[in-house]
């Protein structure tokens, strides 16, 4: 069993990391090149770049989102993201694996803090999952992959949290085997699923905006059709 762990933390980790880095770089390249092609073909090329930048920044620091229609969902999503990012990147054991393969290390956050954040993130992910299942509007928009990824991340967080506790009832190596291979699978999946938003989010707003400009005044015309003449301007 330790052999399987070592393979996952050595060659397979390198494989996953290369897929992760290059796959995301590929996604960014494809998105940018696609956007540029779209701009070239668009009839209306006057894009509100300043507005796009503002919108994007407000998405990175979603303070405003807390005041919106679903505060609970926003808080849960916030806790989930913070926990996943901090525990994923700043846990001593994760940094060790990275260092033994790539030779680069960075500062680790204290274990108790990460434990708390992980618990909050688990709670957040559970709430998000419940929303997906029970809220009709979210359920309609959900695909199978949305559920799979959320359950996978939840499983990884729970197994990682339990493995570090003294009361852990499951044999450590068994749990780690699940946690490590699951993590590797997730890292490989990131560039090819919606999790790619971790690098693509600055471009989302930009690409949406371009889509509205493919025909002149296209955006306002759509709104006019949907909401009548008093729709807000995009």
């Amino acid at each position: 069993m330790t052999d399987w762990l070592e393979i996952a933390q050595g060659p397979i980790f390198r494989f996953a990391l290369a897929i992760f880095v290059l796959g995301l770089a590929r996604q960014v390249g494809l998105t940018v090149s696609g956007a540029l092609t779209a701009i070239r073909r668009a009839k209306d090329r006057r894009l509100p770049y300043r507005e796009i930048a503002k919108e994007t920044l407000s998405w990175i620091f979603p303070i405003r989102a807390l005041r919106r229609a679903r505060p609970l969902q926003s808080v849960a999503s916030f806790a989930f993201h913070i926990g996943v990012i901090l525990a994923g990147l700043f846990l001593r054991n994760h940094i060790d694996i990275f260092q033994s393969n790539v030779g680069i290390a960075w500062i680790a956050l204290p274990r108790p803090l990460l434990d708390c954040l992980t618990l909050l993130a688990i709670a957040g992910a559970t709430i998000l999952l419940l929303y997906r299942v029970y809220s009709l509007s979210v359920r309609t928009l959900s695909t199978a992959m949305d559920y799979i990824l959320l359950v996978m991340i939840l499983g990884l967080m729970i197994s990682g949290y339990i493995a570090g506790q003294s009361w852990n009832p499951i044999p450590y190596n068994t749990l780690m085997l699940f946690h490590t291979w699951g993590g590797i699978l997730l890292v490989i999946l990131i560039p090819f699923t919606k999790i790619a938003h971790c690098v693509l989010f600055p471009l989302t707003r930009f690409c949406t905006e371009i889509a509205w400009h493919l025909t002149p005044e296209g955006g306002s015309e759509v709104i006019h059709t949907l909401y009548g003449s008093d729709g807000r301007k995009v």
Partner: protein
Amino acid sequence: MSQRKATIVKDFLWACTAAGFVAIILRFAYGLGATTGLSDTTPWGFWIGFDLLGGVALAAGGFTIAAAVYIFHLESYRPLLRSAILTAFLGYLSVIFALLCDLGLPWHIWKPMVNWQPHSVMFEVAWCVMLYTTVLSLEFAPVVLEHPWFRLPIFRAVLTLLKRLTLPLVILGIALSTLHQSSLGSLFLIVPYRLHPLWYSPIQPILFFVSAVALGLLTVTLEAFVSAYLYDHELPHGLLAGLGKVAAIVLWVYLALRIGDLIFRKLILAPFNGSWQGVLFLIELGLGALIPAILLSIPRVRRSPIGLGTSAILGVSGIILNRLSVSVIAQYRPPETAYFPSLSELLISLGVLSAIGLVFLFIVETFNVFGAPEKHELDQSVSSPVSYAFQDDLWRNHILRRSFVVVLVIAATFALLPSQIVEGRMMPSTEVRSAVGGDILWIDGNRNEEGVRFEHQKHIERQRQQATNEETACAVCHHLSKPGDQATPCWECHRDMYLPTSIFDHTFHQQALGGNVSCSECHIGEHIADSAVGCNECHETMASKESTTVKFNYAARGYVDALHDQCVSCHKREATAQNKENLPRCPTCHRAEGAPPGVRRLLSLSNP
């Protein structure tokens, strides 16, 4: 359909290029020692044999066809001219790239331009590569400049000038190519005692030149096959049969030279003495030259695509095998330092070849290489907006698929390459420290406290009981002593824990015995390491008759290997003789008790 075949081939080439790309990055990040099988005893390996010598020989089609068309006015071969020159140009580019990977200090590659050393063959080689690559680029430039992209008057003027210069360029190309093909052979004139006599020949330059001509013709043939298959061209049967006929004549000349050389040097029976070199020689010359020569001499065979293709493949692989043999396989080297190309060497060769293949396909698809007149009509049909949009989508599909393949291959290469290469670890040299103690020796060469308590006194007593002559009892283990010494300790020769170390100063012995005329003092027959007499011939007490190492040996194995071999082989013998089955097992010597207390105090004093 034709598009699809080319697309699949290009996808495959992209994948290979990606794998080679990873290997190239690792090679330049960590250096030759950590990523290749090359060493000080084998500084020239697969890259020199396959990429460099093979690549230059493959490029010989360029000057051969150019000579046929422009010098001998065989106008019918003109359709093959452009692709032959393109192959030669790309071949030389790949050679230069492989050379940059192979050089220890690649940023010094410009030095031969400034530091002239006219006595060196390598100097000639360097200048030939440089000048001939330039000439080839000028010879091929008109094909590129004819394209509508270069409509500006300045490009047109350059094009006219280059077309006027064609004949001088062709003549220069033939001269440089002849010089270069033969000078690569001359390089190996310097190693008469390192290269096996079946391959070492005083007419090596001529052999290299003649075989390169044959190889060049066969490469052009193969290339016509490949492009005919990929782009559904009609195969120019008549032309290729003509090439095959010339190739057959050249191959017969090559065979006659090769065999005549062996007869002249009285080695004609050497291939049949049963050694592996003999078998290699027979395979190389039989499968790689004789059979294609016979096949191509039969008119019916060389007119059929299968016959022509088979003989071209055989001939090309045979002559590349010859280059590999001369530069790598058939060279003597000490058995401790056997060479096999590492995975990264193979991947880089594959990657460079694939990248060049991609460039070839790009040029063939973009420019008018095969002289097909319908090319321009095709350009016009594309200019309608609908087909532009269609092309754009097709292009985007290609990018989507190929970038995915490239990402996957790069990641897989990182995962599958041995960790030694990926992490750039080379076996570091670890100096051996002497064993410490008296009756009980503490053997711990690298002082990591995982040594062995060796009962020296008990072993001496046992040997004295068994040995017939008390004087030679020590020599059972102390198999070789320094001149004037008795029972030299292990660590004085086996000076590195894991790597072999040199224990013989050849230059010193050569000078002491009278310089260049002194070879036969030690070497019997051929002047190679294997023919040297044992040290005892002069230093009478160095090696004992009792010891296993009477033969001359100039490299001492690593300490760990040497001691394990020495102790375990004897323990195994004694285990059967005395019926003590535990004697050869690890814990018999490697125990947990560590160094004796006195030794520990001593070591702590010497290593504070």
